[in-house]
């Protein structure tokens, strides 16, 4: 039995943060400059009382509706988030109940960011091809807006909230993979939300603001990104990852119909594409009205590429995720 991506839907909360809004907070960055450098015009922001699991549930409801999916056939839920409802239980358990998925389904959370969707595909493939599951619901969701310092323009310009649901099912045809995974925990502090766990509980001290050399303000209760280091990591790791996947799969550029990389920001994507000498027309960008939605950027882009008929049944797509961990993964997807 093979694993196949059967359907994708996504959900973006109604609230928006536009470049005009950001410009009001940071007048030194013009509206045009933000759009030109990041490729983002607007990001969606969840209401204060709306959690990642809520966004994930909305995306799953859309999946059931848009693709006429019978939820009673789902036998595994994988929930990828960095902003769970609680330390425990797993948000996937709450999602099972709220969606009315049978109690015979397995459910678990996994904590990854921008590489998470590709990891989720790999896990779903393992469950299906080992015969342990037939219909895996992979939900990716995050609400980083809740952990971004209002004065940190380095992250507020690019990141938005959102969720996607992907159904991976057992199939006679189709194929998912091969995959390549990688990890470098030495880079853990390059992209981190430090306080609030057991290692560093929140305190008055963790809430003290610190200013970096560019005037970006953050504290340990908010997310921190070392832009230069994450940038260098991406430029070094992603080209190697892609070339390794070409080698492992035995495929060449001519055999790939579309590339969908994690939509970090347009600037870094352009650089990576040029470095790899990949054709621009096959390098899909979907970021302008949702920004970087962390683990959901790839399924959101993939679903739009399908709707725009950039790809069709039988197309071969390379998906590449990279980011917080540091963690990375790439794979070949047939739809």
């Amino acid at each position: 039995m093979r694993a196949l991506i059967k359907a994708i839907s996504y959900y973006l909360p109604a609230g928006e943060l536009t470049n005009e809004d950001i410009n009001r907070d940071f007048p030194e960055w013009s509206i045009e400059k933000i759009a030109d450098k990041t490729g983002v015009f607007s990001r969606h922001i969840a209401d204060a009382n709306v959690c990642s699991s809520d966004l994930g549930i909305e995306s799953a409801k859309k999946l059931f509706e848009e693709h006429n999916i019978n939820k009673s056939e789902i036998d595994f839920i994988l929930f990828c988030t960095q902003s769970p409802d609680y330390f425990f239980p797993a948000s996937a358990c709450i999602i099972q109940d709220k969606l009315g998925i049978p109690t015979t389904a397995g459910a678990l959370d996994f904590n990854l960011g921008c590489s998470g969707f590709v990891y989720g595909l790999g896990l779903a493939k393992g469950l299906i091809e080992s015969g342990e599951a037939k219909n895996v619901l992979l939900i990716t969701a995050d609400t980083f807006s809740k952990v971004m310092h209002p004065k940190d323009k380095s992250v507020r310009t690019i990141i938005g909230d959102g969720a996607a649901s992907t159904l991976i099912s057992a199939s006679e045809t189709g194929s998912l993979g091969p995959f390549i995974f990688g990890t470098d925990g030495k880079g853990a502090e390059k992209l981190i939300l430090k306080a609030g766990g057991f290692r560093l509980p929140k305190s008055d001290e963790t809430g003290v603001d610190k200013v970096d050399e560019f005037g970006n303000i953050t504290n340990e209760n908010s997310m921190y990104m070392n832009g230069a280091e994450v940038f260098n990591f991406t430029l070094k790791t992603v080209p190697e990852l892609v070339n390794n996947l070409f080698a492992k799969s035995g495929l060449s550029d001519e055999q790939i119909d579309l590339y969908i990389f994690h939509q970090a920001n347009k600037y870094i994507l352009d650089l990576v594409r040029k470095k790899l000498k990949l054709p621009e027309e096959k390098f899909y960008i979907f970021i302008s009205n949702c920004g970087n939605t962390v683990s959901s950027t790839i399924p959101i882009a993939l679903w739009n590429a399908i709707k725009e008929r950039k790809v069709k049944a039988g197309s071969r797509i390379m998906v590449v995720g990279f980011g917080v961990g540091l963690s990375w993964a790439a794979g070949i997807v047939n739809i």
Partner: protein
Amino acid sequence: MEINSFIKQFEDTIADLPPDSIRPETDFKNLQQWDSLAMLSLLAKLDSEYNVTLTAEELNSCNNVMELYELVESKTQ
């Protein structure tokens, strides 16, 4: 590589920089145009032009454009 062409590239890379505004002794980190995006643009340029990767720390250790030029040159050899 020589310093004048390096300066030209530096000026082309940093957004909104008036032409001929950079000298070898310019402390680029104090330029009004020097922000986190300018730094990323410069890191990208050094990577694509010279195949040199600088960390933020290395970049910050340079007091002026001449020192940056010398650092890049030492890494290309």
